[in-house]
């Protein structure tokens, strides 16, 4: 079984967003770039599966769309333990563009299990995984919080309102994963970092695909009014405010 993880290269979650070019863009220099948190968990789970002999995982590959500046993030994934990597040499435009680029490459060499994160922490689109599955015309399962492989069968837990469903779907398929899929993201060891330098990173050219949406500009949220402080000796006042002023209880 071969596993592919689609990685998004995103600003660190603590990044302060500064708008530039007349609010048409955000400042991209001086930012710490990281593997999208859910993709990092997906990679961690894929590596756990590879270490489990019953799962019979032969190879774990990561794929990313981006310019050369995305390579440190890819190398990090290799250092954590991916076997090889693909970088599609294109700047992401929208989710459809990204999914189409990924589909063009994946079609030539199908994987059994493709993992995507539930969203990327920059544009919060929740779109690439589902789009990719539709473009490849294969099944997808979303809101996945557990994946196991045993004797070639892939079993999955997906979240539903107030609980979960245990489902099974034949390969090839796309799973869109969220919290729970792995406990903590794995960290690269010194040895991993050394080995990553020699692992294959294949750069493939962009395909001529279109985008369906366009980001016309950004706005920052309006600053919030100051917090009204209530004395700890007068908790009742808080309840009065919520009841009479905010009218929420």
């Amino acid at each position, binding site marked *: 079984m071969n596993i592919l993880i689609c990685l998004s290269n995103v600003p660190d979650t603590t990044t302060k967003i500064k708008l530039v070019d007349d609010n048409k863009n955000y400042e991209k220099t001086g930012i710490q770039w990281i593997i999208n948190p859910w993709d990092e968990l997906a990679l961690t789970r894929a590596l756990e599966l590879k270490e489990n002999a019953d799962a019979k995982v032969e190879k774990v590959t990561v794929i990313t769309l981006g310019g050369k500046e995305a390579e440190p993030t890819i190398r990090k994934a290799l250092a954590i333990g991916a076997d090889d990597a693909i970088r599609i040499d294109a700047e992401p435009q929208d*989710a459809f563009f990204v999914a189409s680029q990924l589909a063009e490459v994946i079609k030539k060499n199908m994987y059994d299990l493709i993992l995507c994160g539930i969203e990327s922490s920059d544009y919060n689109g*929740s779109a690439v995984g589902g789009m990719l599955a539709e473009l490849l015309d294969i099944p997808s399962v979303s809101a996945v919080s557990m994946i196991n492989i045993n004797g070639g069968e892939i*079993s999955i837990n997906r979240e539903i*309102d107030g609980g979960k469903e245990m489902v099974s779907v034949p390969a090839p398929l796309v799973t869109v994963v969220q*919290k729970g899929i792995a406990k903590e993201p794995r960290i690269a060891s010194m040895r991993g970092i050394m080995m990553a330098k020699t692992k294959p990173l294949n750069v493939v050219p962009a395909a001529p695909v279109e985008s369906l949406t366009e980001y016309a500009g*950004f706005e920052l949220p309006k600053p919030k009014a100051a917090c009204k402080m209530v004395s700890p000796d007068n908790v009742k006042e808080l309840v009065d405010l919520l009841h009479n002023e905010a009218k*929420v209880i």
Partner: protein
Amino acid sequence: MSVLVYTENWEGKFKKLSFELVSYAGKLAEMLGTSAVAVSVGNVANDELQKLGNYGAAKILSVKGTGLDKLDNQVFTSVLAQAAAQENAVAVVLSNNNTGKALAPRLSVKLRAGLVSGVTQLPSSLNPFTITKKVFSGKAFANVVVKTEIKVLTLAQNSFELVQVENKAVIQDFNANIDAGLFKTTVKDVEKQAGKVLLTDAEIVVSGGRGMKSPDNWGPIEELASLLGGATACSRPVSDEGWRPHSEHTGQTGKIIAPNLYIAIGISGAIQHLAGVSSSKYIVAINNDKEAPIFQAADYGIVGDAQKILPELVKAVHEVKAS
């Protein structure tokens, strides 16, 4: 022409989320000079279907058939695409919940329709079709232009007011053509917790962080939540430690919620936590550190020891509820 809206059901029933969606679709249809058509998949009785008309659905397509009680993303996408074709849909609206997130991207590809997910408002312009959405987990908003003729939108829960109209809806059976080979998702087992207010549905959420010190201290949080008819939540370290179930974890990597009231107790207010709760209409912070960043995001705050304040809060809420 029409605006199609997918209304999921929960064991044959709709909930507030469904009515928000229909309200949104109705208003969008009004802007576009057309009407809203709801699609329901699975077994829903006619009197329940008819309720969608109260919020602006002009027509309700009811799709019934075997195998449609469990979500198969390819099957449901195919059904929705067929309904969109029959109704000449120029926009399809789904919820930004688990099901909507599973279906909307597939539908976007199938219809070659640009997708904007997690919208909270109607479009700011129709030509070009421009709509605002949160990006960077709430740290900014983006104005997104959809370039295609058909648009797919997912609406964030608790973000759109219900709109009541005179009910003129007609219900029609819709026979979708589903290839048996398309069913690939087998549901082997279901685990469900009944009787609790769902965190994403809740209008009031009481949430505890590491400042609660121990899972044994959660009694008053649960009591407060049940008194207020709300749900309980927690910060990530609390669920990572196993003090509370994962389903309660709110924030960037957990649940993203927008209740009317969010009460954060012993939560520092890290940026990743705020990413999940900043759309709440009111935030209350209780924390013993007056410098905690949660106070920057809060509307009301008390600086003090949660263990001392919580029992008093429970008592005061009791009194207000009794009056």
